[in-house]
């Protein structure tokens, strides 16, 4: 029997988020995150990226509520100018889906007649070879890194995600590298007990990190409620650049990591946010 050429499993499981970000995220990378819209936003990773002084070059879609920091950057170039590629939710979804499907583009009817698609760098007119009306082709968007927060994963990155999905699956398929941040690293048998729950197969995953509460103040179904107050506080404080900077210091720069963030939040807040009741999914029997 030939000796195994490479017996060692590549070590995807990282000791810390810091290690995962340092290894997987590089300056100038296009990063896809916040993919489930309002839940499971990997804030711990975002804070780590800010601490590591990296700059995301591209903001694809901003929905819901105007962000003062974003407006200052866009309107006044403060602290620096950002370049915006405007999309609708569907068009950015199709851009990721095209990359996920290994295609240069996907056709769509969305956006026709509006200004988003006019002169758009990623959207062009395309005909229908079967003689129907013209469509738009949305060019593939392949992020360098997708950062995804899930409930549980095994050490190989096979990830169980439930509740809100949004564009999470498309982004993991589309991205060159995917970082899975999970509430719990679980034994392989837990994942294998329900392969239909595996939204991201491990062979697409570059790094796995266990970081409980890493999505706060956004929610994680079955683990964390949404912490509404910080969203309002950030909105108020970020009205001025000084306010934003002081908020950044308090909640990001002066905290070494996520456990320190949770400690700064305080036990009372954590107790209020942590889900302790159970509403289990009805049993699905996989017996063969």
């Amino acid at each position, binding site marked *: 029997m030939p000796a195994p050429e490479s017996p060692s499993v590549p070590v995807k499981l990282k000791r810390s988020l810091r290690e995962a970000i340092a290894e997987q995220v590089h300056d100038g990378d296009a990063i896809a995150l916040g993919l*489930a*819209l*309002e*839940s499971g936003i990997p804030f711990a990773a975002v804070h780590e990226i800010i601490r590591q002084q990296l700059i995301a070059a591209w903001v694809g*879609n*901003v*929905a*819901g*509520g*105007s*962000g003062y920091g*974003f*407006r200052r950057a*866009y*309107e006044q170039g403060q602290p620096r100018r950002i370049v915006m590629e*405007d*999309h*609708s*939710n*569907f*068009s950015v*979804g*199709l851009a990721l*889906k095209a990359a996920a499907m290994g295609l240069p583009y996907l056709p*769509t*009817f*969305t*956006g*026709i*007649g*509006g*200004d*988003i698609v006019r002169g758009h760098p990623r959207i062009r007119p395309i005909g229908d070879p079967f003689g129907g*009306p013209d469509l738009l082709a949305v060019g593939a968007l392949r992020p360098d890194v997708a950062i995804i927060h899930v409930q549980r994963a095994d050490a190989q990155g096979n990830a169980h995600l*439930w*509740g*809100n*999905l*949004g*564009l*999470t*699956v*498309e982004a993991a398929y589309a991205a060159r590298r995917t970082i899975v941040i999970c509430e719990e690293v679980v034994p392989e048998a837990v994942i294998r007990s329900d392969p239909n729950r595996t939204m991201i197969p491990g062979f697409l995953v570059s790094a796995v990190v266990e970081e409980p509460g890493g999505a706060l103040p*956004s*929610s994680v*179904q*079955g683990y964390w*409620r*949404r912490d*509404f107050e910080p969203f309002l506080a950030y909105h108020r404080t970020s009205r001025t650049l000084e306010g934003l900077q002081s908020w950044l210091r308090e909640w990001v720069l002066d905290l070494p990591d996520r456990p320190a963030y949770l400690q700064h939040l305080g036990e009372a807040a954590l107790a209020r946010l942590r*889900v302790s009741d159970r*509403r289990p999914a009805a049993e699905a029997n996989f017996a063969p």
Partner: protein
Amino acid sequence: MTSRYTRRELMVVAAAREIRDHEVVFVGMRLPLLGFGLAKATHAPDAIGLFENGVIRDRPAEAFIYTMGDPPNIVGAVACLGLVDVMSLLQQGRVDVGFIGGAEVDPLGNLNTTRTSSSGALTRLPGSGGAGDIASLAGRTVLIMEHEPRRFRERVDYVTSPGHFPGRRRGGPATLITTLGVFDLSTRRVRAASLHPGVTPQQVREATGFPVTIEDHTPATAIPTADELAYIRHADPDGFWTGDSMKTG
């Protein structure tokens, strides 16, 4: 107008009336979400609600939600798919009606939620979200707006959500619900269907930067019934969305 209901409560009632029974509704947050729940509780018990994050519900969430991704909006959903899945159903034509809002509207029902220079300086707005998709692909759209002169413009600065235009494949704006009245947009002209109680035609004209047809016999918007108000106040107990201090649109 010093009655026992707020204008936003009246708008929720008007939104609910735009939903027919058995219809598939693309539900937004804020007033349309309440309108969907109210319609389900009254004349449209079999309406189905789609949310752009992938959630499909046939009844409102049991608890108050701030965003459609809040965990109570998942609990009790009939399905929780992905964004592209529900948008695909929308593109297929399986959605009868969708609700959208904006910072600016024009007579063709074009909405701007991207950027404006109306105040002189450039103002960046949040962007499309799903609104541009609903405007493009739903069977018909209902627009919900704060009725202010700077928002009602002859031509919006930027068409985020397309209204009527030549060659439109499907749908288009049907109704515009504002803080002053309900307007029919289905004929590509803006015609008042009803003015809210106490609102005069002159008030509407002054707040509207384009011509609007208001007939002599334009009725008053039907005021909320006690049952309707009871539903709304049960669903929004603190008046977070329907109190007079909350901005719509």
